[in-house]
């Protein structure tokens, strides 16, 4: 097996304290069954899955509770056995924000009985059937966006130049991929090979940051034992955000994913190691995605560790399984310290996008400094992995100058947060870019609505005008007809008068 050591340097990026050692001291905690599950049916971009269970119905672990909706979607399954208590809208955390989504609420019975229904336990041989199985099994990108995996694989199948398996895990605090690689390297490598077969990839690169020697060793051993000639192992420099999809591709291949496109545009596809593990479980045992590894960490939790959490587990209950909160906890964060966001409540459930929950103590969170004026030092531009000019973007974002934002490439911002970290004036940059992206999307929607309204209004005016024209023409025709009839009548009268006159003169006609 060829080992790659990329000699390219990441564009921008920063070195950060990892905060990972505390959560990797113990093995993954498994076999948890929470008393209640709240399973979101739309944990990702795209359309919601459609529920197929009813309130009151008994469900078994792994039983499908929702089928994929139209378009980009993934199915959902009961993560443990129990009874459906409600199907309702609830707030769930997704990759980048909280959102309201239809959820199936299950009251568990603690028995964790597996579903014995019609789940295919054999991995089909043709690609369409494989993709369909992946879609129905609810496999989604477990790196943090929960994007439906079947859609991603399908977008590159048959013209894939390389499958890139992301085990970089560059964000501070998160260690779920690290622990998974240490404990289940064979399953991961087998899953990776299945993915490579599915998309017909001639090359497979498993990329891991150098600060995870145990994971690298485990994956290396597993890969050597399996001995697939397509496999490559790449040790990455430990720098944030080397694990970003676009950054990883650039680091490994030197190619840049063009602005406004996804890696499939240049024949690459990235998959997280957790997703490969889920795929292998599906292929070998027929199990759909009912759980994921979640890092529960931060100084505010008593026993930080990684847990295999059933999808839908309430976050508060999960923290109790890790020794509960410590007194100095001040904030809950979904995701890592860079791209994560604060949670309003620990009653929210785990989703497929929940890689990490940080129960942060006072000393871990960013102090709210006053913002000072920008001193044009350019540090933010130097660390920006997307080669943007954050100092100019922030001016345009504040002014809601949409043309300027577009020209400056707001859309290319990956919201990694590097600019915030280095800004000596403590200017809040990434959050403004996020909100500007939302405003920009709304602006574009409005523009589209305006253009559509204008076109429809014009068509309506033309139609009304044409109808009025028709009416005028019909009226004119009617008038002409009436006039013609009148003339005809007059002629008839005149003719009759004429005949009468002739009769009077004695020229009697029949």
């Amino acid at each position, binding site marked *: 097996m060829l080992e790659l050591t990329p000699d390219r340097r990441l564009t921008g990026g920063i070195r950060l304290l990892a905060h990972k050692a505390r959560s990797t001291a113990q093995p993954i905690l498994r076999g948890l069954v929470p008393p209640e599950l709240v399973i979101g049916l739309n944990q990702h971009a795209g359309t919601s899955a459609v529920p197929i269970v009813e309130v009151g119905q008994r469900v078994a672990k792994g039983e499908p509770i929702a089928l994929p909706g139209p378009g980009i979607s993934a199915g959902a399954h009961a993560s443990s056995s129990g009874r459906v208590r409600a199907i309702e809208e609830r707030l769930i955390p997704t990759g980048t924000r909280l959102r309201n989504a239809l959820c199936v609420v299950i009251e568990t019975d603690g028995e964790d009985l597996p579903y014995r229904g019609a789940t295919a336990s054999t991995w089909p041989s043709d690609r369409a059937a494989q993709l369909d199985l992946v879609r129905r099994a609810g496999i989604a990108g477990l790196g943090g966006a929960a994007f439906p995996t079947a859609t991603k694989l399908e977008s590159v199948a048959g013209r894939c130049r390389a499958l890139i398996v992301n085990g970089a895990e560059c964000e501070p605090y998160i260690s779920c991929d690290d622990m998974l690689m240490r404990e289940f390297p064979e399953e991961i490598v087998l899953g990776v090979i299945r993915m490579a077969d599915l998309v017909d990839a001639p090359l497979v690169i498993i990329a891991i940051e150098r600060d995870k020697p145990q994971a690298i060793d485990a994956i290396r051993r597993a890969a050597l034992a399996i001995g697939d000639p397509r496999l490559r192992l790449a040790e990455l420099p430990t720098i944030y955000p080397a694990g970003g999809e676009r950054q990883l591709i650039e680091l490994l291949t030197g190619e840049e994913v063009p602005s406004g496109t996804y890696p499939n545009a240049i024949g690459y596809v990235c998959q997280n190691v957790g997703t490969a593990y889920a795929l292998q479980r599906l292929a070998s045992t027929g199990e759909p995605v009912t759980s994921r590894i979640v890092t529960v960490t931060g100084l505010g939790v008593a026993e930080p560790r990684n847990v295999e959490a059933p999808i839908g587990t309430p976050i508060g209950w999960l923290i109790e399984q890790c020794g509960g909160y410590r007194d100095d906890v001040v904030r809950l964060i979904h995701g890592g310290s860079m791209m994560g966001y604060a949670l309003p409540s620990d009653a929210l459930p785990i989703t497929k996008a929940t890689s990490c929950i940080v129960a942060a103590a006072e000393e871990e969170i960013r102090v709210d400094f006053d913002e000072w004026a920008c001193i044009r030092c350019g540090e933010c531009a130097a660390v920006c992995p997307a080669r943007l000019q954050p100092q100019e973007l922030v001016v345009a974002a504040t002014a809601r100058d949409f043309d300027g934002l577009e020209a400056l490439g707001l859309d290319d911002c990956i919201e990694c947060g590097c600019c915030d970290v280095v800004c000596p004036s403590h200017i809040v940059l990434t959050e403004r870019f996020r909100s500007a992206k939302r405003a920009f999307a709304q602006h574009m929607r409005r523009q589209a*609505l305006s253009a559509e*309204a204008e076109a*429809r*209004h014009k068509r309506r005016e033309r139609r009304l005008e044409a109808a009025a024209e028709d009416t005028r023409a019909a009226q004119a025709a009617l008038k002409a007809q009436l006039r013609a009839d009148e003339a005809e009548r007059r002629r008839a009268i005149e003719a009759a008068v004429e005949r009468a006159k002739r009769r009077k003169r004695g020229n009697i006609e029949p």
Partner: protein
Amino acid sequence: MLTAVTLLTGLSLALASALIAASRLLPGRDDDAVAQVERALPRIQCAQCGFPGCRPYAEAIVAGRADINRCPPGGDSTIRALAEMLGRDPRPLDPSLGGASMDRVARIDEALCIGCNLCARACPVDAIVGIPQTMHTVLARYCTGCELCLPPCPVDCIELVPRHA
């Protein structure tokens, strides 16, 4: 020296008269201005400004007959765009006008609808469908939230609800 003065004077006189002639003879740019102002408006024809549509309002703005703060659905961003375009001072939206917003859409309570068709005839963008005497419905995708369907409804069965993105 004399040649230079004559040449330059002659040149400037000739060019000036050419410019004056052009500005007199060529068609004015008011139409352009109206079109530009209209493009800055939301063009949903809600008539909340007091003019019968976006085009008439744009004409009134260009002619100086109307202020730039009379477009409720456009809101602050439209006022800012107009202020910048016309070199006028931005000012808050006229509060005496309605609250039409493009973030909402009309919804017909189908149980109450009597099929009178008056709303469909009032809709400036043909976003209401239904034949007389039968239930009508709003095509949310095309509805602009202009509220023009509300006044004609004899049974008050239309309400505005948030638009789902």
